[in-house]
């Protein structure tokens, strides 16, 4: 009998962890024995659907389908009555099977119709510009409908629209969201949650929004990426040092053709004996994607 290779052993442990972490309802939570939620369930399926056993995948997919609201969106979980940002995650994942599936189309429609806060008066716009030096007329996507746009939900939604092949007919809306991302860039490159400047001080970039923004721009507007964005991500992901930041950072860098061996080594070393990263199905899914093939959606040239 041959022994499994170290790489295969890591895979076995990770799969065992995710099997243990799957709830009887088919979904995954942010930790072991935690309530099933849309984001971790989507992330696990996106990362591991080809490796998990078929019944586990079918149960996870059915959970996601059941969690969809009548308005076409998804909330945190089926108990959350309001659709919000996790809709992008669910669309990203379900589109892997069929971008034209009804649940994907309904999810896309919800994303496109979700209202975004827009300032009404010139006076208010001028005040926002004075305090934050941003162009408040630009729309990205909010965390919750009706609120202001932020970098991470904007990038996630752009990625979801791309996954669902829904970008072609939404050119103007997507171009505006890309202008939004460019406008929210930090002074030395990279992104934070969406405030590059506040009351006289430039705010620093952070790894998570920078990685998401780079993934979205790489797929939809590569010329908008600047070398300083890439450098900001490299610096910030190592400074943060958490598994989530390293995993997202590796995926974004790899997508734009930059290899960071040190980040890979650091992330690999963070895998726990139970096969997980931080005992979190969500972080484990991100780390697995980062170390095994990268972000699953590629640019369509």
């Amino acid at each position, binding site marked *: 009998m041959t022994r499994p290779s170290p790489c295969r052993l890591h895979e076995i442990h990770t799969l065992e962890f995710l099997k243990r972490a799957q709830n009887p309802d088919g979904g995954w939570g*942010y930790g072991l024995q935690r309530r099933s939620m849309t984001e971790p369930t989507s992330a696990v399926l996106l990362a591991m659907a080809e490796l998990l056993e078929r019944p586990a995948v079918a149960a996870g997919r059915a959970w996601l389908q059941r969690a969809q609201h009548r308005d076409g969106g998804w909330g945190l979980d089926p108990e959350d009555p309001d659709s919000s940002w996790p809709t992008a995650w669910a669309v990203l994942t379900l589109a892997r099977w069929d971008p034209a599936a009804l649940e994907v189309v309904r999810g896309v429609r919800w994303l496109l119709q979700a209202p975004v806060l827009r300032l009404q008066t010139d006076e208010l716009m001028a005040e926002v510009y004075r305090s934050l030096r941003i162009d408040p007329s630009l729309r990205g996507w909010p*965390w*919750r409908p009706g609120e202001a746009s932020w970098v*991470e939900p904007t990038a996630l939604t752009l990625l979801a629209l791309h996954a669902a092949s829904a970008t072609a007919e939404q050119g103007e809306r997507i171009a505006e969201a890309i202008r939004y991302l460019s406008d929210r860039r930090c002074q030395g490159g990279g992104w934070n*949650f969406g405030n590059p400047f506040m009351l006289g001080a430039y*705010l620093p970039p*952070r790894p*998570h929004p920078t990685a998401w923004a780079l993934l979205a721009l790489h797929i939809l507007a590569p010329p908008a990426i600047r070398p300083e964005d890439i450098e900001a991500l490299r610096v910030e992901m190592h400074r943060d040092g*958490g598994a989530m930041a390293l995993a997202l950072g590796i995926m974004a860098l790899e997508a734009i053709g930059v290899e960071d061996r040190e980040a890979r080594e650091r992330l690999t070393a963070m895998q726990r004996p139970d096969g997980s990263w931080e005992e979190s199905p969500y972080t484990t899914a991100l780390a697995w994607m980062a170390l095994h093939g990268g972000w699953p959606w590629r640019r369509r040239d």
Partner: protein
Amino acid sequence: MAAPRLTRRALLRLLLLAGIGGGLAIAERRTRPAGLRTFLGWILRGWRRRVEPPAVVALGASLSYDEKLLRDALAELWSQAGMPDVAGKRILIKPNLIEWIEGRPLVTAPEVVGAVIDLLRARGASEIVVGEGPGFRRDAGPVVAQSGLEAVIARRNIPFIDLNYDDPQPVPPRDGWFPGRSHLWLPRHVIEADLIVSVAKLKTHHWAGVTLSLKNLFGVIPGICYGWPKNMLHVNGITPSILGLKQALPPVVSVVDGIVGMEGDGPLFGTPVPHGMLAVGRDPLAVDITCARLMGFEPEEIEHLSWGIWAGIGQGVHIEIRGASIQALRRRYQRPPR
């Protein structure tokens, strides 16, 4: 038959009724979105505080982050402030871990959190967890590690809960501070706590003026529900959100770390102020008013404190100081940019 005559008395009655009705309609309009009934409730509660006994705030002076000194000082201040019995209770310690920027005193010193854990354990708390949901970080882990808190709680075998992901549940927003919202999502460990100890940092804040034990409660709002930063709180208004959160949570008591405070461009980019003080009290409003005074602010300058006094969120009128005196500890912190 002759038409009934409108007598002078009847006319006056009609005018009086119209005046009352009109006044009520105007008052109802002016008090939206909270509504007249809620508004009157706040005013009455605020007045009632004037005849209620004082809140006690205990102040420690000339302190450092030396572990033993801090433990002894905290135990004494806890007793002086008449803090609640914690035996058999589930306690959530909520430090300020908003972010980590090297060289900036922007988080609660881990030594203070360690001293609070030791005190609660010595007094028989049945379950202690430390929790925070950073507003600028998707992952709290690196902030916990880089601030030194990870080592402090690991040594004491206390878990850290990232409140941004802590299986949030809907709770009713009590007291009318979140108009139009049928529920607020709050983390499981927050809802299940018998007592929350808000272990805040003494800092200036560019939007709120100061951030102390009340503003520190923003960190319990789960990011997975409301995003990063916690934008819903700004949409609702910072002041109503601070006061509304205090009302929606289980009982909150305060410990404020002012051993090194922050002045100027807080809550992130201010500069350190060696102040050597610690404040402890069971009424967060009274503690924060006292701390604001120690920073050189009058409560009227800080909207959430003046509204809190007006609406009787706590005892803001009569405050009894024990331990060090306000005069000895008062400084004038540089104001945040506006």
